[in-house]
């Protein structure tokens, strides 16, 4: 056990910088090394750690081991705080924009039944999950929001059609599904022919779009 190794142990265990005098005082009275001897051992330690990821640094109140600044990027990953969770309001707003786009803030408020703060919209804009795709021709020209390509990438979706469908109360069996499919195809055909009817059929189309998935 050398003076150098004892100082090494002390400096690593300490949670604050230790001065040469403080280090000296930690030795039993009759075995105390001189401050000069301590300084010399500290120099050896400094030299030893010089090529490593840490350094023995001298600060105002003494000596302390410190991880070198070059490694700050890695350390920041280590200490990155656990991400908080989005509030229900944020999730609901995002869901409305995803499933009902393009929508204005007013539309979102109508569906949620409560005001939507600008913070929520800002959060989603900053995350690059939504964007404004235009303005509604209404008083105040409110922005129309839609989801972005980045939103699709984040959720690993090719297109919005891949968003999970609502859980149906009861799953229709395959044959029924196939029948509906064919029907709806014809219906679609008709719809194109007579745009007027389309609006009425909308519910059915929705169901088909979902079972298509």
């Amino acid at each position, binding site marked *: 056990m050398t003076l150098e190794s004892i100082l090494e142990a002390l400096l690593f265990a300490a949670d604050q910088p230790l001065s040469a005098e403080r280090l000296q005082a930690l030795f039993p009275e009759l075995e105390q090394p001189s401050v000069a001897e301590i300084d010399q051992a500290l120099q050896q330690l400094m030299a030893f750690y010089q090529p490593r990821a840490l350094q023995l640094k001298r600060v105002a109140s003494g000596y302390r081991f410190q991880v070198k600044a070059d490694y700050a990027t890695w350390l920041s990953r280590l200490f990155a705080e656990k991400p908080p969770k989005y509030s229900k309001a944020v999730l609901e707003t995002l869901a409305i924009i995803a499933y009902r786009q393009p929508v204005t803030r007013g539309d979102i408020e109508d569906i949620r039944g409560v005001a939507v703060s600008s913070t929520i919209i800002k959060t989603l804009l900053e995350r690059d999950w939504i964007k404004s795709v235009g303005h509604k021709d209404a008083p105040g020209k409110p922005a129309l929001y839609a989801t972005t390509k980045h939103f699709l990438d984040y959720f690993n979706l090719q297109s919005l059609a891949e968003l999970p469908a609502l859980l149906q109360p009861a799953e229709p069996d395959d044959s029924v599904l196939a029948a509906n499919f064919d029907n709806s195809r014809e219906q679609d055909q008709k719809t194109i022919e007579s745009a007027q009817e*389309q609006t009425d059929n909308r519910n059915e189309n929705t169901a088909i779009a979902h079972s298509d998935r």
Partner: protein
Amino acid sequence: MTTAALPIMPLAVVRGAPVDALPDDLYIPPDALRIFLEAFEGPLDLLLYLIKRQNLDIVDIPIARITEQYLGYIDMMSALKMELAAEYLVMAAWLAEIKSRLLLPRAPIQDDDEDDPRALLIKRLRMYEVMKNAAEGLNEWPRLERDIWLAQTDLPPMTLQPEPPTVELDMLLNAWQALLKRADQHRHHRIVQEPLSVRERMSLILERLHHVESVAFPLLFKLEEGRQGVLVTFLAILELSKEGLISIMQAEPLTMPMIAVAGKA
């Protein structure tokens, strides 16, 4: 051997017999006795001490002698009217029972009888001794704060960017379903669902119109998307029109319809 030679059992004291069972020449300051007994973790610990003090192995214990000594302590405690944990008295009764069995002729004793209280006592003493030793071993084992210190270093200055929250797809679906359920409860606010491909197309068309005055109706269609794609675009245009987000204009019959953002043209 004869039972006639046996003296009066100190057991009687445990049952509340007179205090004069305490020998006259014995004086232990009550405090000392209390401190002495407090050093033990219980009756097993005290018994173990009595056995070890005589350099005996547990399996060799002379039950009667140890019982005498154990009961001796119990007597003293009772005599001094000191509070004694119930476990000590239970053990005293148990020891007395073992001892009384030993006084009987050999007949009723079977060596490998599991119910034999003596074998059970030995088993318990052994187990306790093992664990008592284990506890001592654990106490001597190197541990943090006493023998081992973590190597700590200062950190270089760094900027901590909190990671944004993660969202799972099903969280989004759950939020949407909760909304629909809520809206259902307020009848007047029914949310009608369109196919998402249509809603997506609506956004795309709006975005496209954002930068231009107007777009000729056919230019919004991409033939390479096939019939399905054309249908989606068509439905999207109708829905946009219905929601008043775009206007469809036709200068005169049979000319090309133009699509523009509502209010722009």
